[in-house]
């Protein structure tokens, strides 16, 4: 089974040299720690920055330099600043190559729910609806089951949707899955020590298992 760092490490392998990448809050943020230094990858923060760097050293925090999670960060050489409309303009125009975000539920046709739980205080969708509606390549990083032990990979989402037919790939603590255009979660890799049977048991949506499933290498 993978821990959060393991999920982030595996997702980092999806990033290619020259990519512009938007990382959501939570596990996706951790992905930045595993991008090989030999690669030229530019991180986009949707509050208006390309070239996001690591947290500042203590004493060097700048209130004017934050990421979309409102955390103090740094800007790498070659960074660019822009306003919020341009930021979502480049997202809508598919200039950002890869979007990695968390989810509460994903359906077998690629719908995603990650912003609202009925009966609970709604905080808002932020930029998530814009990102999922426009991004060319969306990878979801999440736990395979919720706190009640119920599968988060479903035939249909039960929570209010953030976007439809948009998720391309999912990485959970149990495995890696493609979301097929015709519907269904195709098991690509399983986490170390996890059997195919365990994955079948934890997946409520249509799961496609073909041939020998290799273990995730991280």
């Amino acid at each position: 089974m993978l821990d959060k760092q393991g999920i982030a490490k595996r997702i980092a392998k999806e990033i290619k040299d020259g990519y512009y990448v938007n990382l959501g809050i939570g596990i996706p943020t951790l992905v930045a720690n595993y991008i090989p230094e030999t690669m030229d990858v530019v991180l986009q923060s949707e509050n208006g920055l390309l070239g996001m760097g690591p947290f500042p050293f203590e004493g060097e925090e700048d209130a004017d330099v934050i990421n979309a999670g409102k955390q103090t960060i740094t800007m790498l050489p070659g960074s660019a600043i822009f306003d919020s409309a341009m930021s979502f303009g480049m997202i809508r125009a598919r200039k950002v190559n890869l979007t990695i975000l968390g989810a509460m539920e994903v359906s077998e046709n690629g719908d995603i729910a990650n912003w609202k739980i009925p009966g609970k205080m709604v905080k808002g969708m932020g930029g998530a609806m814009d990102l999922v509606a426009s991004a060319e390549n969306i990878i979801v990083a999440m736990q395979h089951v919720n706190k009640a032990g119920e599968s988060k990979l479903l035939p249909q989402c039960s929570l209010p949707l953030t976007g439809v037919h948009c998720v391309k790939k999912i990485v959970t603590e149990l495995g890696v899955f493609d979301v097929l255009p015709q519907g269904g979660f195709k098991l690509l890799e399983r986490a170390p020590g996890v059997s195919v049977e365990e994955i079948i048991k934890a997946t409520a949506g249509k799961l496609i298992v073909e041939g020998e499933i290799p273990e995730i290498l991280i």
Partner: protein
Amino acid sequence: MNKVVSGADEAIRDIADGMTLMLGGFGLCGLPEKCIAALVKKGVKELTCISNNAGVDDFGIGLMLKQRQVKKMISSYVGENAEFERQLLSGELEVELIPQGTLATLCMAAGYGMPAIFTPAGVGTEVAIGKEIRNFSGKDYLMEMAFDADFAIVKAWKGDTMGNLVYRSTARNFNPVMAMAGKITIAEVEELVQPGELDPDHIHTPGIYVHRIFQGENYEKRIEQRTVRIREQG
């Protein structure tokens, strides 16, 4: 062409009960904190506020919420504010949640003189309910109507007496698009300079969009999430 006013109190003097205001900033970053303080002091009520966030309990728009000055918030994300949550759950406060990119682009549309935009954000979700959907090249888009705000209040780093503005780092965020979108736009700046001191090539908001400008003193510029790296001990 002198747009300079004495301070926040004069800048907001004619903001009245029931008006619609745009307030720049992302979280607490690039927030027009001097004008917000003046609005709290003035005590105007029944306001509709268009702003990406609603501040925190004791800073930003949270201060106006505490005084019950806000009737409706139009935002993309409103977490981090207990008083906001209380008023929302008790029905005292109305909230319209809009995807962040849509929010920004509706400000931009107003500033560009366009009545509406088409965006894919929210298609197939509850955001699309009651909205016109158009299909372009096989993909569905929602028609969203541009904002109409009585005042836009923004914060810039530097500005000149003609209203030209320059922002700093990610404190830029919603400020330039909101500056373009108000019937009357108020800019508060950290440093007010004379015409000619800002390089025309470096202006982010041309002064034509700005009606009133003043230099604020002693900006608090509060940090919402202070995150740091530990320096390795040598």
